[in-house]
């Protein structure tokens, strides 16, 4: 311990820290700590001058460890790691004491806040003297991407990857590309023909020399980690994919990133039997109407319906069917279809039954205004039941603006069925180690700032597999996933954080608890050596394995038991 030479830097953070903590006293105290050879306080340690101070001291005072008492490490740990690296120290020889968020900002008694800060600093120094240099691993990245799912999200992601110069393997389980969008007639708010745009997109993807399309194919396993995934794909029957050997039904792709674009399933309205779907032919879904509109045949055998009702939120915003969420697109789909029907049947009565109209996208509210102006009636009403009434059906419900029960006879009912997580989400989630949010869709790494990343580096989400989306939001999301997926490829190598778990083989009993516990699939049992090993690139440093290991064979580097206990001891001293 006497060998370590720790430099302690106390940041004022302007007045953020200095107002509530006596920084000069804190620095003076730090000088007295075992291992500390110098301590300074400075207005802003993160400033260029502050960092230069550290660099100068490292070389002139031969510091081998640095403690910065400042803000949260989430904010500036990378800054100070860079600073010591430039001075020739291993970047893991930096420790931060958070005396801002966890001290100065939450206390107003200056004396007691200073006292707390001294303990935080003592604790950081105690840990610092036990820090060990760690080496970050660099792994070369395989220059290709597997995209799972050939809907518009998968197509957009594939095209972006290919255009950036990398191989893209588009794996689609059906026999054709386009997914749900193949069933759509027109876009909103511009009412363009979807199939025209889709055909162009599909042909651009198919024609791109960097793209390999694997139809009637599914991914059966994914192994490895960012930069080096091994993806097994099984193909049923003949494959139309260009350049792929049709005689083989299984192949292995080695790629740097994986994009999941597996889409959604439409809600099955039979789960709301009170609506009579499946029982009455005049009750159909928006998807079915879309197909009829695309085919130019309303399926009415020429007897144009005189009265049409659209019901919003079928299977959405409905905890009874387990879907508390909004499906995001139905309001505009209904507005668009109602407008199309209005054009086809100028004399029909078209009514939309809603509880909130959610026309939020670009041009959407304007579209809703125009839909009403063209004579589509919006009624704030909930329909609780649909019953037969001679050759029509009768909607029974309440008009909440009239505050009274209503019964309306109609010729055609269109149910705006929502979106649900795909039926295969569970198996995909296990295979790709993807977490799912309570709504069943795949969970993104952060709901605000990382909407396409996942907890597994190298695996990204595109489109409705992450949550319901319209076409524009899906395309943006898919291109965003492509951006994330391209970054490691363009860099050529990835660096893994060195603060990962390691196994002491001498202690390991090969019990496999760590393998079960790890959410990232990092540990594995080595069948030859009879011990567990941890893939450093998959390990996220969460420490779950270290905790469950009954033999204490696993330790988390940069948070070893020794370091943590020294920290706790200093805090309690």
């Amino acid at each position, binding site marked *: 311990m006497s060998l370590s030479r720790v430099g302690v830097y106390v940041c004022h953070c*302007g007045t*953020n820290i200095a107002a509530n903590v006596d920084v000069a006293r804190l620095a003076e105290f730090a000088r007295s700590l075992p291992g500390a050879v110098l301590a300074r306080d400075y*207005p*802003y340690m*993160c*400033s260029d*001058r502050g960092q230069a101070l550290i660099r100068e001291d490292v070389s002139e005072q031969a510091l081998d460890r640095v403690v910065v008492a400042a803000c*949260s490490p989430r*904010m500036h740990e*990378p800054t100070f790691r860079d600073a010591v690296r430039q001075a020739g120290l291993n970047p893991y020889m930096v420790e931060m004491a958070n005396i801002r968020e966890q001290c100065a900002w939450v206390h107003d008694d200056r004396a007691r806040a200073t006292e707390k800060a001294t303990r935080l600093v003592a604790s950081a120094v105690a840990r610092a003297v036990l820090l060990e240099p760690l080496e970050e691993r660099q792994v070369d990245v395989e*220059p*290709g991407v597997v995209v799972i799912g050939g809907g*518009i999200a998968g197509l957009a992601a594939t095209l*972006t990857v290919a*255009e950036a*110069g990398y*191989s893209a*393997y588009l794996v689609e389980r059906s026999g054709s590309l386009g997914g749900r969008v193949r069933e759509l007639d027109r*876009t909103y708010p*511009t009412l363009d023909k979807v199939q025209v745009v889709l055909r162009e997109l599909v042909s651009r993807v198919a024609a*791109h020399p*960097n793209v390999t399309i694997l139809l009637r194919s599914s991914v059966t396993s994914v192994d490895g980690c960012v930069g080096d995934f091994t993806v097994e794909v099984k193909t049923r029957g003949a494959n139309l994919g260009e350049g792929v050997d049709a005689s*083989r039904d299984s192949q*292995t*792709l*080695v790629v740097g990133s994986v994009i999941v674009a597996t889409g959604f399933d439409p809600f099955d309205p039979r789960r709301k039997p009170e609506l009579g779907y499946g029982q009455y032919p005049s009750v159909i879904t928006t998807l079915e109407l879309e197909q009829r509109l695309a085919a130019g045949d309303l399926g009415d055998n020429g007897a144009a319906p005189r009265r049409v009702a659209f019901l919003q939120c079928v299977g959405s*915003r409905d905890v009874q069917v387990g879907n*508390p*969420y909004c499906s*995001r697109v139905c309001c505009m789909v209904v507005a668009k279809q109602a407008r199309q029907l209005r054009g086809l049947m100028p004399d029909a009565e078209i009514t939309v039954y809603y509880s*909130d109209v*959610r*026309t*939020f*996208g*670009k*041009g959407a*509210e304007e579209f809703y*205004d125009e839909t009403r102006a063209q004579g589509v009636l919006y009624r704030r009403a909930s329909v609780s039941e649909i019953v037969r009434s001679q050759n029509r059906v009768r909607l029974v419900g309440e008009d909440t*603006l009239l505050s009274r029960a209503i019964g309306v006879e109609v010729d055609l009912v269109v149910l705006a069925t929502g979106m649900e997580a795909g039926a295969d989400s569970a198996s995909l989630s296990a295979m790709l180690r993807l977490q799912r*949010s309570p*709504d069943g*869709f795949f969970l993104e790494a952060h709901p*605000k*700032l990382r*909407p396409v990343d996942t907890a597994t580096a190298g695996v990204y989400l595109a489109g409705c597999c992450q*949550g319901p989306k319209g*076409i*524009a*939001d899906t*395309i*943006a*999301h898919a*291109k*965003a996933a492509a*951006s*994330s997926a*391209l970054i490691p490829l*363009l*860099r050529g190598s990835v660096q893994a954080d060195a603060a990962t778990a390691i196994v002491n083989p001498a202690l390991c009993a090969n019990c496999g608890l760590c393998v079960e516990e790890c959410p990232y699939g990092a540990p594995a049992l080595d069948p030859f050596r009879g011990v567990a090993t941890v893939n450093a690139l998959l390990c996220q440093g969460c420490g779950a394995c270290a905790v469950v290991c009954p033999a204490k064979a696993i330790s988390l580097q940069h948070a070893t038991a020794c370091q943590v206990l020294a920290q706790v001891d200093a805090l309690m001293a």
Partner: protein
Amino acid sequence: MTERRSAALVIGAGIAGIQAALDIADAGFHVHLVEREPAIGGRMAQLDKTFPTLDCSSCILTPKMSAVARHPNVDLLTLSEVVSVETLKASRCEAGGAGEIAPSFHVRVRRKPRYVKVGVCTGCGLCADACRMKGRVSSEFDEGIARRSAIYVPFVQAVPLAYTIDESSCLNLTRGSCGRSFACADACDAGAIDFAESETVADLEVNAIIVATGFDLIDPRVKPEFGYGQYPEVMTGMEFERLVSASGPTAGKLLVNGREPSDVVFIKCVGSRDPHSGVPYCSRVCCMYTAKHAHLVRDRFPDARITVFYTDVRAFGKGYEEFYDRVRGEGVMYRRGEPSEIYRHNGKLLVLAEDTLLGRPVEVEADLVVLATAAVPRADAPTVAALLGLDRSADGFLREADPAFRPVETALPGVFLAGCCQGPKDIPDSVAQAKAAAASAIVAMVRASGMVRGRRSSGAQVGRRTES
């Protein structure tokens, strides 16, 4: 990391611009990130919490801000504005496929003087303390609720952390003198103050441009019936954000007229969905931030009566409806009907509305009214559009190539849109769009640097192994 020749320009360093710049820089390309303000972070830096997870906005944003500022591939130009853009060539790329174009642009950026040397300034703040204008200048960042000096940082976590002298309020810069000597310069131990700094021009060559210039908020005075500006109890959503922010001017204490509010009313669609006095479109974020605001009031004042007036609650994003359910469960009263007027009666404000579900007019007492004001195009959106040769949609926002299938591209090759300059958006949608714009820019830069051919062949060889 490979050094690459191509570079991109990102205009605007809010969350969209920051994210786009980070993706491009992480991919190994050079990025010029141009921000008009002295610090980056944009609107998101002003927010207290974010919906629906109630993450602290600055806690998740500041690491991104420091990452972009620290990134070796990012050239951060604050206090800077693009003044001209010239498309140099639109050469056909040999390798990029039939008819693909790899444009390049000559961009001129005007860099306003900061009068403080970045890197020398330690951010200690002694200058602001000494400034003779201290407490006399309205803080833009705090929506005018707090006052600052003529030399200032917009907020404590500002990146870059360097003070700025505001030309419009500095005594020396406006009237030529400041007592016998400059108070700020006298106070600065680091010697960072430099009144000799002058405007400079930076000329950049780039292969892709991402426009991420954000949005403005409508002045609620367009709806005079709400008495904004007349009643101190009536404030905008953004003002409310600053008031409840722990790092805001009141350190998060929500006091109105010096008292804790007990009757709080939220009014949505102030200007939005309102072609009569505001804008025809929906501003897309107000329903959710209002739900968040209502929650924050409930969190502070368990006994407060909280009313949210609405016409349609638009809780459409991931976890949003669930959050709306939660907020109602916390005893926030949602009443269907938009308030029509506010006036003072016997000292209290009365909010007049019709509860359209009851079918009768109601008068709700309020000691705090929060107006969810519409997001509108930047006042200089026409200038930006003209500068780049972009179109604008009927709503005044910048126009994308196709609202459904090409949401980030523009009619111009090599120019892309990110975030709210294209239309109102919440943070995740802005981030997704920013990353999408970055992907498009990366494609353009790959083409421009002629990387395509080599990659393509190696990809086919290395990327796939077929096993028996």
